[in-house]
């Protein structure tokens, strides 16, 4: 038997940490670390609904698999964009103001 308070609090704390990470980072690659934490909080919630009994079509196990796959695809594209930006600007500082040569 597991009390539901634990998973719910874990999900809330993970999402909070992820949001703080997205807000505090200036390095574009490390921004993705915060995004991953938010997504893992969502995973915990999805799996908890399965344990809580409200589960049809094994959705509590299948939807997390979809979330993990979509997150992997998102990270791949985001890192490609970061690398392209680094090649174009020489910096991945998210606070750096845009310069004239950045405009297409």
């Amino acid at each position, binding site marked *: 038997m597991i009390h539901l308070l634990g998973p719910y609090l874990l999900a809330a704390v993970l999402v909070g940490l992820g*949001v703080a990470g997205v807000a505090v980072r200036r390095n574009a690659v*490390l921004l993705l670390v915060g995004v991953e934490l938010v997504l893992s909080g969502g995973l*915990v919630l999805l799996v908890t609904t399965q344990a809580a009994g409200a589960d049809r079509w094994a959705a509590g*196990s299948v939807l997390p698999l979809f979330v993990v*796959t979509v997150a992997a*695809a998102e990270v791949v594209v985001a890192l490609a964009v970061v690398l392209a930006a680094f090649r174009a600007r020489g910096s991945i500082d998210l606070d750096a103001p845009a310069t004239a040569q950045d405009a297409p």
Partner: protein
Amino acid sequence: MTALDTAFAASAVLAVLGGLLAVVTRHVVHAALWLVVALLGVAGALLVLGAELVALVLVLVYVGAVVVLVLFALMLTRAPAGPDLAHAVGPWRAVGAGLLGLASAGLLASVLVPLADGSVDRAQVTTTQVAGELFGTWVWPFELLSLLLLAALVGALAVARGHRSRDPKAVP
């Protein structure tokens, strides 16, 4: 407090500590490695909740692929080995981000905690059941997912190659 509660609490503490250090550390490589610790904690929590397949996929895809990709991106963007002073943020930014995170966590907790009415059993969904549903009910989203991965692969390749292929005479 059952044994499962204790195991879940241990995994949750690992996940939260790893996540906290991944967010606050100044060393960029350490941030990616603390993310591994956090994700292992999350995988342990999912294991306790009865989703073995999801926990294994989380470790395989996130720790095996995503974190390695992040480490490669850090190397390719010339991340310093020591503290990342070029991207240091001021104290007000840190305090604001902390408050934002606290507000998000508090908002979610205030919605979710009233729903936590008692204990539940560990989920008894076997991998055979998951596979049957995945290739039965969920087969079209699953096929769409393969298309998404293909699009992400081709798109990432096209974006990362840049404009050089279009204009071979230009100096990169």
